C-alpha cells in the first residue's frame, strides 16, 4: 500500500494543520475537526453540539445564511458536516483552484459566527433538527437502538450515556446564550485540526491558511476534557425488550470494550469482520445461509476514544424464528470463535477484504482528509493513517481469542430485543 504523504504544521494560535498533497486530480479537500462532540454537552443540553453544527451554516460576519452552501456549490464543490460523540467535522471538496474560498468560509465562521446569529435562525434549525430526529429515530423501524444502547451500556454520569441527536425536550430548551457560550468555549483554533488534501502547492496553501486562520485568537481557557472514566465491564447481563413498529424482531448485543486506539480494540475490529463482514463470515454463513434463522447480521465496533467503546452485533430474525433461538445461535458462533480461535483462512480473508475496502475509501481525497483529521484530533498522530493496515495485520489468532474472552462475555452484555408492537401487547 503506498504511503499517504503527510506534512504537519501549526499556527501560533494553536491551530494544527495537516497537509497531504496528491495532484492526480485537480481537486482539493478541506476538512476541519473540532475537538467537541456530544460527550462535551452539559446535563439538560443533549443534542446541542449537533444543533450547533447546523448553526454553523446559518452565516457569519461576512457570509449570508445559506451562502456557505451556495458559494461552494457554485464553485463545483460538495460540502457537509457531522457531529458524533467525540467530535464535530466540517468538510468541503472542490476544484483545486478554489481552495482559498473554502479556507475563507471556514475561517470566517470560526472567527465570527456570533454576529450573524438570530433567534429566528435558531428556531428554524431547531425545527430542522427535530425533523432529523423524527426521520432517523422516532419514525424509523429500530430507530432508537443507538440511543437505548448508549443509555444502558454507559452509566448516567458518563458522557456517552446520551446519544448525539439528543432529546426533543433538550432541543426545545436550547437558547441563543447557549450558542454563544458553546462557540466561545469550543470553536477556537487551538481546539481544531485543519487538513488540506489533494491538488495544492504547499507554500501557497500555508500562506492562505496563515492569512485566514492566523488572526483568530485562541481560547486561553479551554475547559479540561470531560471525565470519561468508567468500569471496564458492565458487571452483569442487562436485558431489555422494546415493542416497536417493526415487521421482524431484531436482537442487538452490546459489550463494553477498550476504546479505539488500543491493541484490544484492533483485535475486536478484526473479530467483528471475521464474524460479520462478507458472505463467508462466520455469522452470515451459519445464521443466514446454513441455519436460515436470520434475515441479516451486522457486527461492528464504535471508533470512540473516551473510557470505553462498544462491540455491537445485530441479527434480524426470520419469520417464525424466536429471538431466544436467534440469540443462542449467535452466541454459539461467538463462543466457537473465542474458544477455538480464527483459522488462517479467516485471518487472510478479513485482511484482504479490509485492504481492498481501505484502499477504496482512500481513493477519495475527502476520506483521506477526514482520517488525517481524525488521527490528529484523537491521537495527535496523523501518521496512524499509514500504520492502520499494519496494526490490523498484526492481530493474530491469540489476540482475537483474548479480546473476545475479555470483553464479549455474559457479565458484560446488553441484550436489546426489538419485537413487533402488536405481538408484544
Amino acid at each position, binding site marked *: 500500500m503506498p504511503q499517504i504523504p503527510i506534512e504537519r504544521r501549526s499556527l501560533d494560535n494553536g491551530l494544527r494543520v495537516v497537509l497531504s498533497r496528491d495532484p492526480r486530480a*485537480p481537486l482539493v479537500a478541506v476538512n476541519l475537526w473540532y475537538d467537541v462532540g456530544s460527550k462535551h454537552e452539559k446535563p439538560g443540553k443533549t443534542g446541542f453540539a449537533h444543533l450547533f453544527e447546523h448553526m454553523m451554516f446559518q452565516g457569519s460576519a*461576512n457570509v449570508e445564511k445559506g451562502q456557505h452552501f451556495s458559494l461552494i456549490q457554485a*464553485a*463545483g464543490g460538495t460540502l457537509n458536516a457531522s457531529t458524533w460523540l467525540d467530535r464535530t467535522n466540517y468538510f468541503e471538496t472542490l476544484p483545486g483552484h478554489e481552495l482559498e474560498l473554502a479556507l475563507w468560509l471556514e475561517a470566517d465562521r470560526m472567527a465570527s459566527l456570533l454576529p450573524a446569529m438570530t433567534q429566528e435562525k435558531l428556531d428554524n434549525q*431547531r425545527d*430542522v433538527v427535530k425533523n432529523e430526529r423524527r426521520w432517523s429515530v422516532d419514525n424509523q423501524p429500530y430507530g432508537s437502538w443507538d440511543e437505548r444502547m448508549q443509555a444502558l451500556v454507559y452509566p448516567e454520569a458518563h458522557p456517552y450515556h446520551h446519544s448525539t441527536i439528543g432529546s426533543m425536550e433538550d432541543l426545545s430548551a436550547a437558547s441563543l446564550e447557549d450558542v454563544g457560550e458553546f462557540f466561545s468555549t469550543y470553536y477556537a483554533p487551538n481546539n481544531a485540526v485543519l487538513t488540506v488534501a489533494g491538488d495544492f502547492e504547499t507554500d501557497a496553501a500555508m500562506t492562505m491558511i496563515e492569512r485566514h486562520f492566523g488572526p483568530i485568537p485562541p481560547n486561553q481557557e479551554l475547559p479540561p476534557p470531560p471525565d470519561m472514566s468508567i468500569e471496564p465491564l458492565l458487571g452483569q447481563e442487562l436485558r431489555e425488550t422494546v415493542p416497536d413498529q417493526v415487521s421482524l424482531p431484531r436482537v442487538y448485543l452490546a459489550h463494553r470494550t477498550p476504546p479505539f486506539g488500543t491493541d484490544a480494540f484492533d483485535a475486536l475490529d478484526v473479530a467483528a469482520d471475521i464474524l460479520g463482514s*462478507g458472505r463467508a463470515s462466520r455469522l452470515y454463513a451459519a445464521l443466514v445461509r446454513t441455519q436460515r434463522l436470520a434475515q441479516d447480521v451486522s457486527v461492528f465496533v464504535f471508533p470512540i476514544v473516551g473510557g470505553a467503546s462498544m462491540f455491537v452485533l445485530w441479527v434480524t430474525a426470520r419469520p417464525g424464528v424466536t429471538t431466544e433461538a436467534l440469540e443462542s445461535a449467535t452466541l454459539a458462533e461467538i463462543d466457537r470463535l473465542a474458544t477455538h480461535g480464527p483459522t488462517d483462512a479467516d485471518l487472510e480473508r478479513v485482511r484482504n477484504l479490509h485492504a481492498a475496502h481501505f484502499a*477504496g475509501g482512500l481513493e477519495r481525497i475527502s476520506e483521506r482528509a477526514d482520517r488525517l483529521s481524525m488521527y490528529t484530533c484523537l491521537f495527535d498522530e496523523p501518521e496512524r493513517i499509514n500504520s492502520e493496515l499494519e496494526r490490523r495485520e498484526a492481530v493474530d489468532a491469540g489476540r482475537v481469542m483474548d479480546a473476545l474472552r475479555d470483553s464479549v462475555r455474559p457479565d458484560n452484555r446488553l441484550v436489546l430485543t426489538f419485537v413487533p408492537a402488536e405481538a408484544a401487547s
Partner: protein
Amino acid sequence: MIARPIAGAPRPYRFPDFEQHRLANGLGVWLVPLPDRELVSIHLLTDAGAAAEDEAQAGIAALTAQLLVTGTRRLDAADFAETTERLGIDVGSESSWDSARAGFTALGSKLDDGLTLLAEMILTPRLDPKEFDRLRSERLNDILQARADPGRLADESFLREVFAADVPYGRLSAGTPETLEALSVEDASAFHATHYAPSVADIVISGAIDPSRTLAAVERHLGGWEGTGPGHRTIEPRQRGGRRVVLVDRPGSVQSELRVGHLGIHRGDARYFPAMVMAALLGGVFGSRLNLRLREELGYTYGARAAFDPRRAPGPFTASAAVQTEVTVDAIRELIGQLERIREAAPTEDELAEVRDFLIGVFPLRFETTGGIAGAIEPLAVYDLPADWWHTYRDRLEAVGTAEVHAVARELVRPDEALILLTGDAAKLRTELEEADLGPVQVVSAS
C-alpha cells in the same frame, strides 16, 4: 476583515480516454486505463433487468442476479464466498429495470483472478435450488420490512399508484409476494439461459490495467461465451388518473413521507440536459427552491428534493420530503406551490448560473474513483449513448439557458396532474386532507 478570495485559473480536466472493443461473440468491451491507480473496477452489464421479465415472473431478474454470487458449478455457495473474499474481492450482483450488473473493485493485482471468477460465475452458475429458495424467502421478508419503513412504503406505494395498472414500472422490480411464491430455480435457469448472452452484454474495466493484456484476458475468459439475447422489451408508461391524494395509513407516525409527482422522461429524451438542470434548481442541491423553502425557511423537514428517474422508457418525476405530521397539509401546499412557481416564470440568470456552475464544476469530483469511472461508462453501454457523451457533457450543460429551463418546466412539471401520495397517521390527517381541496382523497392501509 479579509474579502472573499478570487479563484485562480482552473486546471483543465478531461474525462479519461477509454477504448471500445467488441469480441466476435458480440460482447462489448470498454477499457479505461488509469495508470496511477492501485485499484481496478470491473462491471459486467447484461440486458437482464426487470424490464426483460414477464409480469407473471416479476422478481426473476433480481433473484437471478443475486443467485449468481451463490456459487458456480465448481464452487458451492460457501466455497465461492471463501475463494473470492480471500482474494479481497467483494463481488456484487444486482439488477435495475434496464440491466443486470455483476462486478467488484479490488486491488489491481487481483485483476486476473477476479476476471476468472467473474466469468465462471456468469457462464457456469451453480443455480442451486436451496440458495434460490433462501434468496426468495429473504426477498419476501424484505417486503415485510419495507411495509414497516415509512420511506420505503412511500416510495413503493407511489410507484404502484402513479402508473396505470398494466405498466410494469408500477410493480416492485424485485417482485411481489404473489409472483415470488410462484417462482422456482428452473425459472431462474431459463431467465439466465435467455438473457445472459454476450450479444446483449458489456464489460467495463477501469483502473490499474494494461489495455492490450486486459483485452486478451477478457477474450480468454469470456470469448467462449455463446448466445444471442432478445431485443429490449418495449414499456409504454401511462399514468393512472389525474390529480389526487392517496394517504397510506401508518398509525402512530410522527412524520408524513410525501411523494408528489407524475410521469417523467426517458433516458434518450432530447430535453435531457435542460431537464436535469431544472430538476437540480427545483430540488437537486442544498440551495434548491424546495429545500430552501421547506427546510431553511419553514423548518418543516430535514430535507426536500425533486428528481427525474429516466429509464429506457419514461420513469417517474418525484418531489419528496419527510415532514412532521402537524404541518403535513401546509407542506403539501408549499411543495405544490414550488412546482407551480417553476412553471410560472423563468429563473433568473444568477439562480440558473449557480446550479449550472455546480453541475459543470463538480464534474471531476464525480470521477474520483475507479468505480465512479466504470459507473460513468454504464449508461453509454446500456443506453447506446454517443462515445463522446462525457467529453461534450459540460458544454451541453453550459448551453442551457433560462428560457430553456422555463420551457422544460412548463412541459415536464405538471402539478395539476400530480399524484400526491403520503404515508402518515390517517387518524390525524384524513379530515384535514379532505378539507384541503388538494384533490380527491383516498385512504389505503399499509399492508
